[in-house]
C-alpha cells in the first residue's frame, strides 16, 4: 500500500518533502494567526495571487528555479501589491475591498501572461513552473527545505522579540499608539511576515489557495482558545498536520496538485472546530443554552412551590404533580425532569410516588428567588417608573441571571423594602430558620 510506503519514510526524498511541508505549514499558520486577528484575510488572498508575477519575473531574469531568487521575486511583488492597494484606497474614492480585488486580479493576470510567454518560449528549465499555481509538495528538494528553515528562524525570532508589542497592537491600536509603540513599524513587520509566509507556502499550496493556509488554522484555533499563545500553538499543529497530509497525497498521487488537498484537510478541521470548539464552538454554545434552560426550569419549579406555600402558609407541605402543573405552562415530563434535578441537589424530596416537597434548603433557595424577583419589580417600578402591571415579565427573565454581586447592589439600593409593587411580601431570608 502506498500509504505504508509513505509512512515508512524509506525514501529520503519523502523525508525531505515531509519535513519541508510540515515546517512551512507550521510557520504559515503561526503568522496567519496575526493576519486573522487583524481581520486581514482578504489582503492575504490578494498577496498570494500577487506573488505570481514576481516568481515569473525571477525566472525570466535568472533562467533558473533557484528557491532564493523565487522567494525574493515573490516577496517583492507581494509587498508591491499591499502598497498599491493601500495607495488606491488612501488616495481615491475606491474602497478597500475593491482595491484589493483590483490589485489581486491585475497582478494575477500579469503572472498568467508571463507564465504563458515562458511556456511558449521553449526554455527547458520552465517545466514545473506551473506547479506554483496549485502547489506540488513532491517538487520540494533539500535546497528548498534549507531555505524554509532560514526563513522560519527569522520569522520566529521576529515573533518572539515583538510578541507583546504585536499583541497590544492587534487588540487595541489606539492604546498601542498612546503608549508610544511604533505602530507603523509593527504594521510593516506583520505585513512582511505575511508576505514571507505566503512566499514560502506557495511551493506546497500554490498561489491560488495559499491564503487559506494562512487563515484556516488560525480560524480553527480561535474556536478552541481565547489565549494568543495557545492559539499560535494550536494553529501551528493544525498547519503542520495539513502540510503532512499534503506530502502524503503528493507521494501517493504524484499527478495530483497538493494545494487543493491541503485546503480540504484544513477546511474540514476548521469546520469541525467551528462546531466542536470548546471556546466558542456551536455545540458548546448550544450546551450552555441547554444548561441555562435547565436552570430556569429548576428555578421556576422552586417558585411554584413557594407560591403554593405562600397561599396555604405552609412551605414544606408535599405537593402532587397535578398541583405543580396547574401553576405553570410546563408539561408533565418537563416538571419531572426539573424535579429529579432538584432532588439530586437535595432541594426537593419525593415523599410518596406522586408527592414532592421542598427540603429546608430548597425552601431557602425558593425564597431567595422570590426575593430577587420582587426586589427587581420594586426597582423597575420605583426607579424606572414602569407601571406595576408591566414589571412581572421582566423580573421573570432577570431573576435567573443576576449575579450575587449585582444582587447585593440591588439589595443596598432598595434597603428596607418589605413588599413588592403588587403588595406581596418580599421574603426575608434572615428570618428563615436554616
Amino acid at each position, binding site marked *: 500500500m502506498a500509504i505504508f510506503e509513505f509512512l515508512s519514510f524509506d525514501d529520503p526524498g519523502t523525508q525531505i518533502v515531509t519535513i519541508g511541508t510540515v515546517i512551512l505549514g507550521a510557520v504559515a499558520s503561526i503568522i496567519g494567526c496575526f493576519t486573522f486577528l487583524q481581520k486581514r484575510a482578504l489582503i492575504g488572498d490578494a498577496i498570494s495571487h500577487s506573488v505570481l508575477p514576481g516568481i515569473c519575473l525571477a525566472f525570466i531574469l535568472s533562467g533558473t528555479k533557484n528557491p532564493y531568487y523565487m522567494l525574493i521575486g515573490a516577496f517583492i511583488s507581494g509587498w508591491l501589491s499591499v502598497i498599491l492597494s493601500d495607495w488606491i484606497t488612501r488616495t481615491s474614492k475606491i474602497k478597500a475591498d475593491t482595491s484589493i480585488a483590483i490589485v489581486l486580479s491585475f497582478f494575477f493576470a500579469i503572472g498568467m501572461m508571463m507564465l504563458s510567454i515562458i511556456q511558449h518560449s521553449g526554455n527547458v528549465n520552465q517545466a514545473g513552473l506551473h506547479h506554483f499555481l496549485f502547489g506540488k509538495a513532491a517538487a520540494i528538494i533539500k535546497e528548498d527545505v534549507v531555505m524554509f528553515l532560514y526563513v522560519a528562524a527569522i520569522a520566529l525570532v521576529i515573533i518572539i522579540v515583538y510578541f507583546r508589542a504585536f499583541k497590544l497592537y492587534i487588540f487595541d491600536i489606539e492604546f498601542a499608539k498612546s503608549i508610544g509603540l511604533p505602530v507603523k513599524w509593527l504594521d510593516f513587520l506583520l505585513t512582511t511576515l505575511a508576505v514571507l509566509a505566503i512566499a514560502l507556502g506557495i511551493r506546497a499550496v500554490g498561489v491560488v489557495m495559499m491564503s487559506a493556509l494562512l487563515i484556516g488554522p488560525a480560524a480553527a484555533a480561535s474556536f478552541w482558545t481565547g489565549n494568543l499563545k495557545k492559539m499560535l500553538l494550536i494553529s501551528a499543529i493544525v498547519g503542520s498536520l495539513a502540510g503532512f497530509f499534503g506530502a502524503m497525497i503528493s507521494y501517493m498521487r504524484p499527478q495530483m496538485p497538493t494545494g487543493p488537498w491541503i485546503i480540504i484537510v484544513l477546511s474540514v478541521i476548521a469546520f469541525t472546530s467551528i462546531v466542536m470548539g470548546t471556546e466558542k464552538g456551536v455545540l458548546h454554545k448550544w450546551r*450552555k443554552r441547554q444548561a441555562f434552560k435547565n436552570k430556569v426550569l429548576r428555578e421556576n419549579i422552586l417558585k411554584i412551590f413557594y407560591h403554593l406555600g405562600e397561599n396555604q402558609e405552609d412551605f414544606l407541605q408535599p405537593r402532587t404533580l397535578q398541583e405543580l402543573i396547574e401553576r405553570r405552562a410546563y408539561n408533565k415530563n418537563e416538571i419531572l425532569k426539573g424535579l429529579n434535578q432538584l432532588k439530586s441537589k437535595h432541594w426537593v424530596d419525593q415523599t410518596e410516588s406522586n408527592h414532592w416537597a421542598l427540603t429546608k434548603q430548597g425552601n431557602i433557595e425558593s425564597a431567595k428567588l422570590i426575593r430577587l424577583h420582587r426586589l427587581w419589580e420594586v426597582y423597575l417600578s420605583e426607579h*424606572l417608573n414602569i407601571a406595576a402591571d408591566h414589571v412581572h415579565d421582566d423580573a*421573570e427573565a432577570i431573576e435567573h441571571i443576576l449575579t450575587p454581586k449585582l444582587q447585593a447592589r440591588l439589595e443596598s439600593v432598595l434597603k428596607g423594602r418589605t413588599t413588592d409593587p403588587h403588595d406581596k411580601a418580599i421574603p426575608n431570608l434572615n428570618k428563615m430558620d436554616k
Partner: protein
Amino acid sequence: MGINSKRIIEVHDLTISYHKKPALWNVDFDLPEGKIIGIIGPNGAGKSTLLKAIMGLLPMASGYIKIYDQPLEEIRNKVSYVPQRGSVDWDFPANVREVVTMGLYKQQKWYERTSQKDKENVESALEKVGMLPFANRHISQLSGGQQQRVFLARAMAQNADLYLMDEPFAGVDASTESSILDLLGAMRDEGKTIVVVHHDLQTAKDYFDHIVLLNTRLIAVGPTNEVLTPQHLQDAYGGKLTLLQEVGELLQKENIPTREG
C-alpha cells in the same frame, strides 16, 4: 396627550436586542399626531434603534408597533424615513436631483420615465429645502448641511404624513440647523407629524413639542415641559441606571436570551 390630537404611533412592550445585548427594554408609549416629537437620551440609549424599529428595520424580541392603529405594512406609503447622513457613501455616482427622485421609487414603475407630476414634486421638495440651485451638483461635492437637506428633500418628495428622522441636526452648520427647524415647523402646520432623534439636550426644549426620554428603558414621555424635569433628566443621564446597564452587559456576556424561550 392633548384632547384634540389622535394617536399616531403606538409602541407596545417593545424589547429589541442588538448582538444579544438589549438595546431597548420593555418600552411602551403612544405618540400624538401633528407634533414635532423629539427622541432624547444619552449615547447608546437606543434612540436610533427605536426609530428603526418603528420603520420595521429590526427584528423585535417582543412587543408590537402600530401606526394609525395599523401594522406598518398597511400604511408604509404614509410614512417616510430620513436615515443618518453618515449611513451612506456620498461618493456614490449620482447628483442631487437623482437622489431626491429615488424617494419616489415606490410610486414609479420601472418602465415609466419620471412623470411630470413627480418631477414637480422633486422640484418643490428641493425648493423647500433650498437646494434647487444645486440640483445638478454631484453629491460628493456637498457640505454636511447640504447632504442633510438632500435627505430631507428625498423624504418630502414622498408626501407622507409621518416623518421619522435620525439625527438630522448632527454635524450641520447653524444656518442649516435653523432652516431645517423652520421647515419642520412648516410641515407640522400642514398637519404632518415629525419624530426626530436628537442628541443635544440643550436645544431639545426649544425644538420639540413633545418628547420621548429614553435610556434603554423609557424614562418619560409627554409634552416637553412635563418631560424635561430635573428628576427625569437625573434618571436618564445621572448614572442611576448603572445597575440596569450592568444587567444588560451580563446578558450579553453570558449569551443568554432576554426572554425565556
